[in-house]
Each structure stands twice: as structure tokens, then as C-alpha cells.
């Protein structure tokens, strides 16, 4: 398989974009944590692999109140945002373990498809709550759009970076269960903006991360917000937990996040 695979190591973002082209038949390798086992296990035989490790996308820029994360930024580096965006740092540190976080990238975490037997994409939660803008390229060229929209059409696109405004406060709560190379059963992220708006998002769902709009609308009443959140999501059974369990605990996590946001305010 490797003999037949064209493997490209772009050394700049532009080169990466050029190699990616319209994205057809391109397998993007960020940190390798998701793609490499698929290759090893014979489930994926790329015809063209784009390895981003030298593409210079591992940037973390803070300009005033605006934060931009390069798609190639290792997840562990988000720990640096503990002061500015607590929920994002906390969520990042909840991903897998130290070494995986050094290898795994923001782009990989946001773009990977559904997990084999547990949910993936933990960073989608806080970044959705932050209403991050995703800049990506694809067959229709470059575009920048809200992450929420991007997630629905991320297949076939190359993510370059995500940008968001620092919130006034943020909070993160997860089901804290087993600890070997942990996958998140269910997590809720919350943001309080400078203008006092509350945004909530969840991961650990069927499909990918989701904004909890009904819960946001009821944010002033945490009990009601928790109950409302269930209507915002689609839940599934998997190796970690059942839809029943997630339905019971989603309100708890929403409640905890709102409580923490309240305390922070």
C-alpha cells in the first residue's frame, strides 16, 4: 500500500493548500493519531497522503482579544490558554493523555469522522461555544465560516485555522469516568461573552459536537436549561455509555457549567 501511496510533506500552508487541490483522494495526516491506526489495520489505503507536520500550521496567535489556532497546533499547547479560555484548556487536557496530546492536532480533533466505538472531537465543544470561525479550503476554494456549519461539511475540506474572541468566562464539565487513554463519554462547554450572551455546546453525542440552543435560551434558569438541552442533541449507544445515560446526565452537566459560569461572572 505504501508503495502505491503518494506521500507529500508540504513545508508551508500555501504548499499544503496547493497539494490538497480539490481534496479528492487526499488523506490528510495531522498528528497521525487517528489516521495511522486505520492504515496499520488495513482499513485505509490512501492514494495520496498529505502529512501536515512541517506545514507551519502549528500556530497559536493571540492578537488583542482575538485568538487563532492553526489546524496543526498540538492539543497539549492549548493548556497555555488556561487563563484566557479556561473551558478550552480544560477540555484539551481532558483529551487522551499527555503524549497523545503532543501528537494530536486541533485540526485532526475537529475534522476526524465519527469514532469506531466511542465519540471523538472533544474540542468541538468549547470551540462551538466560542462560536469559532473555521477557515478552510476545498473544491470551491477558501472560505471562512462558523465552525458549526463547517463541521457539517468538513469531509473533503482542509482546515487551516479557527479563530474566536476571548470570552468573559467559560466553563467545562465532563463525565469523569475511566482513565486509560480516556475518551469522553459526554461533555458540556459553556461561554459567557463580553456582552453577556451565554453559549453552550456538547460533545459525546451521536455524530459530532452540537450547540445547545434551547438550553442557551433558558440559560437564566439552569434547571430548565438542563432539561431543554436534551432536545438539542441526538444521542447514541456506544461502548462507553448508552443514549439513556447521556440523556440523564446531559442536564447535570449543563447545570454544572451554568453554575460555574455564574460563579465566574
Amino acid at each position: 500500500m505504501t508503495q502505491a501511496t503518494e506521500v507529500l510533506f508540504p513545508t508551508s500552508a500555501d504548499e499544503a493548500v496547493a497539494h490538497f487541490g480539490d481534496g479528492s483522494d487526499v488523506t490528510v495526516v495531522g498528528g497521525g493519531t487517528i489516521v495511522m491506526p486505520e492504515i496499520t489495520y488495513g482499513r485505509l489505503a490512501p492514494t495520496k497522503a498529505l502529512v501536515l507536520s512541517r506545514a507551519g500550521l502549528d500556530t497559536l496567535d493571540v492578537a488583542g482579544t482575538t485568538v487563532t489556532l492553526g489546524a496543526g497546533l498540538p492539543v497539549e499547547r492549548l493548556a497555555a490558554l488556561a487563563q484566557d479560555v479556561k473551558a478550552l484548556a480544560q477540555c484539551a487536557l481532558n483529551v487522551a493523555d499527555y503524549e497523545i496530546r503532543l501528537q494530536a492536532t486541533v485540526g485532526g480533533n475537529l475534522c476526524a469522522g465519527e469514532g469506531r466505538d466511542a465519540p471523538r472531537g472533544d474540542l468541538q465543544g468549547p470551540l462551538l461555544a466560542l462560536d469559532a470561525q473555521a477557515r478552510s479550503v476545498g473544491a470551491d476554494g477558501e472560505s471562512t465560516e462558523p465552525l458549526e456549519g463547517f463541521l457539517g461539511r468538513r469531509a473533503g475540506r482542509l482546515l487551516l485555522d479557527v479563530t474566536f474572541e476571548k470570552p468573559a468566562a467559560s466553563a467545562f464539565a465532563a463525565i469523569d469516568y475511566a482513565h486509560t487513554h480516556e475518551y469522553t463519554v459526554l461533555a458540556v462547554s459553556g461561554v459567557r461573552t463580553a456582552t453577556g450572551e451565554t453559549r453552550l455546546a456538547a460533545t459525546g453525542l451521536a455524530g459530532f459536537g452540537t450547540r445547545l440552543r434551547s438550553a442557551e435560551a433558558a440559560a437564566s434558569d439552569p434547571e430548565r436549561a438542563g432539561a431543554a438541552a436534551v432536545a438539542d442533541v441526538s444521542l447514541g449507544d456506544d461502548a462507553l455509555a448508552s443514549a439513556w445515560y447521556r440523556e440523564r446526565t446531559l442536564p447535570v452537566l449543563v447545570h454544572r457549567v451554568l453554575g460555574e459560569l455564574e460563579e465566574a461572572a
Partner: protein
Amino acid sequence: MNLTVNGTTHDVESGPLATLLDVLREELGVTSPKAGCEQGGCGACTVLVDGEPQRSCLTPVGALDGASVTTVEGLGAPESLSPLQQAFTHHYAAQCGFCTSGMLIAAEAYLKRGGTDDREAIQEALAGHVCRCTGYVKIIDAVAAVARGDSFDLTVTAPSPGMTNLGGVS
């Protein structure tokens, strides 16, 4: 491409998408990193790449042209054991030994970045490494002992914390 492993530079013939683990074990004959899962989940294949711990099963070797890799073979030999290797011996931190290479590498990286003897910090630093034999207690003991700067008598082993021996009672 070339790769320096434990101080020796090799030309690598495997394709660029071959995992570093495969290159080390199958092409270069460096067998201390183990293929415990090839999913990134057990930690037994962990090596240092330019000083940082990485799962060699997740790393395409093509991304490492010119890099320097350290495995357990590079930490120390039987006659020149590193402090961690001594500590793992003295504290009986290896039973079947299959996870030990990855544990040692992760612990080495932890101490290199200034890790202390705080047990919770050690647990967090090594969290991605599964050991099914020891129950982790003695591994934490070993890493903490090196962080404290202990020296080790390799002719005996140390008891675990929290042990009481009542002898024979009826």
C-alpha cells in the same frame, strides 16, 4: 531519509507512511518499543523524538527525516543503568516487563521537563500507559524516588508504602 537512533544514524528504506514503530522493530532491529496495540492506546511503543515522547505506532516515519530517536536501549545498558532503570529495578516496577520500555521513556520525559515526586503529577504524566501487572503503585514509587534524587541498592528491593506484616496470627 535518515534517522538517528540512540546516537547511530541510519538510512531508512521503509516508505514514508511506515510507522516509526515498524521501522525501529522490523527494519532497524530495535525491539524495546513494543507493538502493544498499534492504536496509540497502550503506550508500550513510546520513544523520544528529539527529546519529546511520542507513540511510535502513530508516527509516519517520513515526518522524521533527520530526527533523533531515543529508545530504552539508549537510556542505559545493564552495566550503566540510568537512575530510572535502577529505580524500576529497586522498586520492582516491572513484572512481565512488556509495558516497561514505554513507561521508562514517559517517565524520563516527565523528569526531564521538571517533574517532581508528587504522586498525582506522576499518575497524570504516565496516564496513557497501561500496565496490567503491577497496579501502578511501584511504578509511581520508582519515578518519585528518582525525582527525589534517591540512590538505589540493586541487590535488594523496596517495600511498597502502606504495607504492614503481622506475621503469623490465628
